[in-house]
């Protein structure tokens, strides 16, 4: 694994379609709870499907419309494309 793959990056900066593992989020408790309920829990795999504001991310089988401000405060660790 390269150094880049273990450094958390912002979810909004993730390459489209590339899987990443959820690392941390510096967001308010309400948004965090809702995202957890939608499946964004520790170590879950997430993909960015569409950039923009709002953007679309996929957690497991759930597609979520997400404000860019939130996507910029969620940190993920990119995974190799075929890893999951």
């Amino acid at each position, binding site marked *: 694994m390269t150094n880049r793959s273990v450094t958390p990056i912002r979810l909004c900066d993730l390459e489209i379609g590339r899987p990443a593992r959820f690392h941390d989020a510096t967001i308010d408790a309400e948004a965090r709870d*809702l995202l*957890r309920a*939608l499946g964004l829990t520790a170590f879950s795999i997430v993909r960015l499907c*569409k950039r923009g504001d709002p953007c679309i991310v996929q957690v497991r089988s*759930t597609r979520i*419309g997400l404000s860019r401000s*939130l996507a910029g405060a969620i940190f993920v660790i990119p995974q190799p494309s075929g890893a*999951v």
Partner: protein
Amino acid sequence: MATSLAVAAPVVTRTLRVALIGNPNTGKTTLFNRLCGARAKTSNFPGTTTSMRLGRFRRAGLSDWDIVDLPGLYGLYFEGPEARIVRDVLHGDHAEPAPDVLVVISDATNLSRNLILVGELLAGPLPVVMALNMTDLAARRGLTISTAALSERLGVPVIPLVASKGEGIGPLVEAIDRVTGQRQPRRPLPSGLEALTAWADEVVASAGGSTLPAAPDTLTERLDLVLTHPVAGTLVFLLVMGGLFWTLFAFAALPMQLIEYTFAQLGRLVSMFLPPGPVASLVSDGVIGGIAGTLVFLPQICLLFFLISLLEDTGYLARAAFVNDRFFRRFGLPGHAFVPLLTAHACALPGIMSSRLIPSRRDRLVTIMVTPFISCSARLPVYVLLTTMLFASRPALAGFAFAACYVLGAGAAFGSAALFGRTVMRGKPRPMVLELPTYKRPSLRTALLTAKDQAFAFLRTAGTVIVAICVVMWWLSAYPRVATVPAAAALRAEASQPGQPAERVQALTSEADRVQAKAQQAGSLAGHLGRGIEPVFRPLGYDWQLSVGLLTSFLAREVFVSTMSVLAGGGGGRHIDAKDEGVMVRIRQMSRDNGSPVFTPATSASALVFFVLAMQCLPTLAVTRRETGALKYAALQLAYMSTVAWVSAFIVFQSLRALGVS
């Protein structure tokens, strides 16, 4: 947490109560409609604004079941109003009785996430049946789940289901029968979301499934490329909305005319059979007129909710909220506010009620405060009357003015939202977190039942109030009785002269009726009230008659046309159609006490602006108070909208007068 869910063991001594529970967008309502059909009623959970549907499942030769459709929720741990209510219901701490059996509906295409709620429910003692819905979609996406393995792993019946087609209902009913009265064995289940998530992934794997689909949902991905695109998505949104409104006006027009015609005939029939006097007037003008004034909006409300339900079922509404989020956010509104504002085009009442889907209280409050600015169908007769009055011989301009009313209303809503966000409701809308459900074929049955439910909700909320208002208005305008005025007596005396042609007798009698009706209005309580409030509206160009029209229409806007018709001396039926040339001519020819016309172009434009912006609807205020839980918001809404309307109408009237348009 799941492990804290301890309730008393179920003892079935009454009609079995089966609760449907599940994540949002799992087909819970579709299953409910399959089981109960039209035998359902929608109400709120006592003391809350969260709606609950209760229906009866009839079983031939066997005892019936009560089916409760609980609010959709992602987990019991989640701190939202829905989760709180469900927790209370399951604990038996709610006014609603606790269920005897839980049917947890899970989306087979998203099993892992749905299992979190299943895990929480399995920790409680209530018997559980798992209904694995949308198994057809899961199969198409290469997701193979062994329901037998899943059932063995969970220790509860797991029934594959395609609720939209009614497949699997029989086995589901049998499974409910089997578990009824059983005490669920306690299972060592993990507590905490992370642990439950790991457990859910492990359960899915043990049932031969995967947390990720074998084949991507290409239909959803392809459609989202277009429907959520900033440009293409906006164009599609405008097309969809254009089509929706065209359908609404094109298809609702005929039933609306039929309702108006039927009640007009009914009013005439009553007039024929009842002797002239207060009773006949009360029945035909007060009661029948009031019922007609309520029912006339039903076709638009039913059609709008039918179409919204279809759009919601397809998954498009979430995309519309997504596309609108950026635009709405500029004005301090969340993308979620799109649905209430759309619904308000039929009626503000269901519009305000649908704001419940907005998660943040601040966002919900702002949406409720501005929703009544949206032009509802009750404003239509007033718009028709005043735009035709303004541009009688120029229909194109009248049409333009009509459309401008809608734009002005929407502009006021967005502008006010921005103002509220910077003043009394400070803050920014909550950043979007919105599940985008899989695109699906909509259910016609669900759409029809939704339309029916909303129609009854409207009738319950608005019908009683509007009918009561009409009866009160009839009383205010009918009493005290004014003695026959000399002018009317002279006309009748002339009509009774022998040798008069029949046409002349009829014309003289009609004129006598008109003169007497006008005198009655002037001398009635409504007339006195109009004169009392006339100074408030004089700067807007209104005389006492127009002031009476505004006063009566404060209770319900649509009363304006009939009130003006009564004041114009044309009789007091509520079934008066603004498109009726006779009504239009009579109102246009109304004169003030000094003989000048009531409706000058400046007055008409001022009244039009006033009606676009004013809070002229008592039922809306009642719903605002109920939905916000505080009288102060209803009072603020009334004060704010009335001020905006008065100031705007003042500016329009005075500007036009200064420009020489009077």
